[in-house]
């Protein structure tokens, strides 16, 4: 079904029948033609970054749980996480360790704590990025939680939740043609298909422009202090892309389209059925501090 990332069959196959019944109650792409079909939560907190730029672990963890509760329509974080993960799951937390802008370890640990709190055995949880193909937990994973910072990228326009699965393929460069249009295909590989239960796009200090061999300059990140959370990676990335584009236009004082265009986001929805990118089809829930939210 177009836009329905996690099918009932996929979820039942993972041995989580009771959880599946409730999970499928979450607004889903394609359920209604006149309603938003994917829910995305933008949560921000003014104090998540200290004056030194370091994350406040407690605030970050609170932001994560607040977003997950809103996403799943629960009042308690534990209940929300139980609708995403079951105790019998083997969980790979796919992170991103790019040296200039990595997923904060504090966020990785917060996700791991919540997964363990659901009842998943410690030996059935792993956090990894470049080692995922050979990581024994990822090799037998029934569930993946996908988290990375959003940044501009030389070949794909943006480094996105969708792109974060590229480490599952042996030759990432094979996907660089046509501005990485086929990235969504990776989500249909057996190692990934139907397994990604949650996407946490880190917008604490997103990068809106890249320069030089290392594609990074401190001038081109800013303290947005947010997370974008959702089960639909296309909707999550499309929401993040709108913020990056707004920041670029603001910073450069003119329209400065993301280049190359991050059309892999839209294509992931339209060609690979991973979700929806049209803002009209996305229910955006805003939580917390919203000054200069740009969206």
């Amino acid at each position, binding site marked *: 079904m177009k836009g329905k990332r996690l099918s009932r069959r996929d979820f039942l196959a993972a041995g989580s029948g009771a959880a599946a019944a409730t999970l499928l109650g979450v607004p889903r792409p394609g359920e209604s033609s006149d309603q938003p079909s994917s829910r995305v939560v933008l949560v921000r907190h003014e104090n998540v970054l200290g004056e030194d730029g370091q994350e406040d672990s407690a605030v970050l963890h609170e932001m994560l749980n607040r977003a997950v509760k809103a996403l799943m329509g629960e009042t308690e974080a534990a209940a929300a996480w139980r609708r995403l993960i079951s105790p019998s799951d083997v969980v790979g937390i796919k992170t991103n360790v790019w040296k200039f802008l990595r997923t904060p370890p504090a966020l990785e640990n917060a996700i791991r704590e919540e997964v363990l709190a659901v009842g998943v055995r410690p030996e059935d949880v792993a956090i990894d990025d470049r080692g995922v193909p050979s990581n024994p937990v990822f090799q037998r994973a029934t569930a993946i939680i996908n988290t990375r910072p959003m940044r501009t990228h*030389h070949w794909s326009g943006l480094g996105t939740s969708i792109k974060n699965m590229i480490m599952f393929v042996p030759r990432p460069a094979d996907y660089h043609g*046509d501005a990485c249009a086929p990235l969504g295909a990776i989500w249909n590989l057996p190692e990934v298909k139907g397994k990604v239960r949650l996407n946490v796009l880190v917008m604490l200090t997103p990068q809106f422009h890249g320069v*030089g061999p*290392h594609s990074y*300059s*401190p001038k081109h990140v800013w303290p947005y202090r947010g997370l974008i959370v959702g089960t639909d990676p296309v909707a999550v990335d499309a929401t993040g892309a709108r913020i990056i584009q707004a920041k670029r236009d603001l910073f450069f004082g003119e329209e400065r389209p993301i280049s*190359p265009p991050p059309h892999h986001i839209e294509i992931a929805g339209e060609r690979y059925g991973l979700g929806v990118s049209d803002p009209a089809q996305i229910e955006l829930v805003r939580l917390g501090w919203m000054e200069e939210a740009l969206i």
Partner: protein
Amino acid sequence: MQASSAAIGVLVCGGLMACSGDGPAGDDLEGVRAALPMEVAGWRAVDDGEVYDSESIFAYIDGHAEVYLAYGMRRCLARRYIGPQGEADIVVDLFELDSAANAYGVFTHDRDGEAVDVGQGALLRPGWLSFWKGPWFGSIYAEGESEASLIAVNALAHAAADAISVEGEAPDLVGELPADGLDPRSVRFLHTWEILNSALFVGGENIFSLSSETDAVLGRYRREGGEGWILLVEYPDEATASVAEENARGGGYESRRDGKRLALVLKPATPELADNLLVNALGGAR
């Protein structure tokens, strides 16, 4: 490959290349390494630097290495300089390309910034200075900004350019772009479809048959109240140029061919502008 093993490999390789003479004319990498000062403006080198080849570069530059490989990168000398207390590090990356034309091409890959007088052309943006000289492309990157680091970036750039003794020529094709309405800062020299798309997104299918065997120059024009681009391509032979011309016309692109050269107009504001741009392309009336 780890940087350290790459460095060891290059020590051997450098010797071999010196013996065989297989490499760009002029400075060899070890000569440039030796000539590059270990201390500049208060910034001190951590060591004499790591050397990366076309394989190990992927471990050093995550996601961007293909740009340099598309321009015939042979090796990269990377040296980190530590600043005085409270100052950020500065990273010097010197890429050895297979020709001066390709060094120029890499330099044109990002043309933002203020022109400064280093090497044969240089641009300074916040925290980053790039330059080209002979078959070398230089990148001087400050991991944080201050008045002192800006001075050091400039000093390191001059020192790096001085360490390279040879100069080279920009590609002849660049001079073939019509001057009328050309934005000089938009000019890019390139070979492959991927690099074209990163400069100006055209589409997924390589209908112009660009490859490492083709030379191309791209320029933006502002004329008659509109904007458009000329892509001038030189193919290895007329047959390839002819196929590309046919494909381009099939794709709805205005084009004009002269032997193995093909001029294309991309994203013109109006059909009239496309026609007018083609009139001057390839140096003559249509």
